[in-house]
């Protein structure tokens, strides 16, 4: 309704000769924005830029559809179909007028302001937004590699890895051991590994009640720890064991042939092993000189513009996000501030005080969800938390069931906000 109204307004305004005034100069082409990456952050930036500003927006995304990593733990538990995690780009093209290019971006020339595509073409831009997500540090664990991930999946990017892990869980013999290797901070979706354990346990409880789950962690504490451990005790007593860094000395190596995980002082033979390695910003960000020594990309918190390259903005998991976690919600929130800043820089539209928001819901069981989140503003030169909130141990079953229903409603809303 609002969209239709706005379009109609533009048409009327155009007929009255007003639209030309909004452009940089009459007769000059619209300013060009290229967005690399059509995930949670990139799709949102492209949509909001195309919807709210007189800009020519091109979205470069190799894949014909995006499979969300968020909510994929429900699929692993058999509580959601894989198809419900898939989102296409048709609406971004036809409804929002974005030029969607299904090709890989292979390089950026910041001086010439062009993006090079795998097919050889160079896309010129006035501003570039990169939302490259994460890449994996396969070298961090001896024996782990892209090939090893076909036997010991990370399933930390939505798609075939997620399906592979589901098939392994389904094929796992009764009484088998599921080992999850969790990375050190920072990484994509801080509560994600522990939600995964919760929902795999939910599946085991129904289908393979003698199975065990072992978490080999590369840290000594984790997000919503008290809430998760309370949930495991209530729903899956005796099934889940968590071994912190100080207990094992950390995961040193894996042996895919035997599905074995080696710590400083022991070897664990798994029936199914889910190895989530440490991560960096997506490769193209590293290769374009946008990351610092940490492997993540420093940005101006008010505009999301790179602190290392002019006219290039970054959103989502690839950035150093201040107090925000690396989450789809955070990427979507950063994307809106980024779109506002890019539109202001290119069209002179108004700037507003940046504000950000995040909520991470985690399922402890199908009808028991806990949440953590905060509002954020820019303070002390970073994206800083303002008001924080977190669920409490001991909340009623009804409160948790309501949170689970809200999580599902959020998924429908935010994927529509990104892709519809």
């Amino acid at each position, binding site marked *: 309704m609002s969209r239709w109204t706005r379009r109609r307004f533009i048409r009327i305004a155009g007929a009255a000769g007003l639209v030309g005034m909004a452009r940089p100069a009459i007769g000059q082409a619209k300013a060009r924005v290229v967005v690399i990456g059509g995930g949670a952050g990139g799709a949102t930036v492209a949509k909001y830029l195309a919807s709210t500003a007189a800009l020519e927006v091109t979205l470069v995304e190799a894949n014909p559809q995006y499979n969300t990593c968020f909510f994929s733990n429900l699929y692993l538990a058999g509580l959601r179909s894989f198809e419900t995690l898939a989102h296409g780009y048709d609406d971004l093209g036809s409804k929002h007028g974005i030029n969607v290019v299904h090709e890989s971006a292979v390089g950026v020339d910041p001086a010439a302001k062009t993006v090079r595509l795998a097919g050889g073409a160079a896309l010129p831009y006035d501003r570039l937004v990169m939302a490259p997500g994460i890449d994996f540090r396969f070298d961090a664990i001896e024996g782990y590699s892209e090939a090893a991930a076909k036997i010991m999946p990370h399933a930390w990017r939505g798609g075939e890895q997620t399906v592979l892990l589901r098939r392994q869980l389904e094929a796992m013999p009764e009484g088998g051991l599921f080992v999850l290797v969790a990375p050190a901070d920072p990484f994509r979706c801080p509560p994600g590994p522990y939600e995964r354990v919760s929902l795999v346990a939910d599946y085991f409880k129904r289908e393979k009640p003698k199975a065990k789950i072992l978490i080999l962690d590369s840290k000594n504490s984790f997000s919503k720890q008290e809430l998760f451990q309370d949930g495991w005790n209530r729903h899956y007593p005796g099934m889940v064991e968590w071994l912190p860094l100080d207990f094992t000395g950390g995961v040193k190596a894996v042996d895919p042939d035997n599905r074995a995980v080696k710590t400083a002082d022991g070897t664990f033979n798994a029936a199914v092993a889910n190895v989530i390695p440490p991560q960096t910003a997506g490769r193209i960000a590293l290769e374009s000189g946008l990351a610092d020594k940490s492997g993540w990309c420093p940005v101006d918190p008010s505009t999301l513009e790179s602190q290392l390259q002019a006219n290039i903005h970054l959103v989502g998991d690839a950035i150093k996000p201040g107090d925000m976690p690396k989450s789809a919600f955070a990427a979507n929130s950063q994307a809106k501030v980024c779109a506002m800043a890019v539109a202001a820089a290119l069209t002179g539209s108004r700037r507003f005080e940046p504000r950000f928001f995040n909520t991470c819901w985690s399922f402890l069981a199908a009808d028991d969800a806990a949440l953590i989140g905060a509002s954020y503003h820019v303070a002390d030169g970073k994206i800083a938390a303002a008001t924080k909130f977190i669920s409490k141990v001991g909340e009623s079953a009804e409160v948790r069931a*309501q949170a689970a229903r809200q999580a599902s409603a959020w998924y429908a809303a935010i994927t529509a906000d990104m892709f519809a």
Partner: protein
Amino acid sequence: MQVSLRAAIPLLAASSLLGPQALAADDELGAFLSETCAACHQADARESAIPSISGLDEAKFISLIQAYRSGMRTNSVMHAVATSLSDEETAALAHYLSTRGVQP
């Protein structure tokens, strides 16, 4: 009849000049603020666990935000939203949501 038409013309002219300009500033702020709402509140919410706020009455919206801010209504997510909004921002958002709704 002729007299009343003539009287109406200056009124229309005045409202078309002042009205949109006076409202435009608020609506740009309201539009930006509403983008945060869109992450959870779908315009056509088929799932009722997070209600639609598109078309919500302005005064009703303002009183809800005040109740979430003060803790009269308990919802941790909405409390964090409400404490992030000034009274001026709340008014701009209330007007925008009542007339346009969420989503660009």
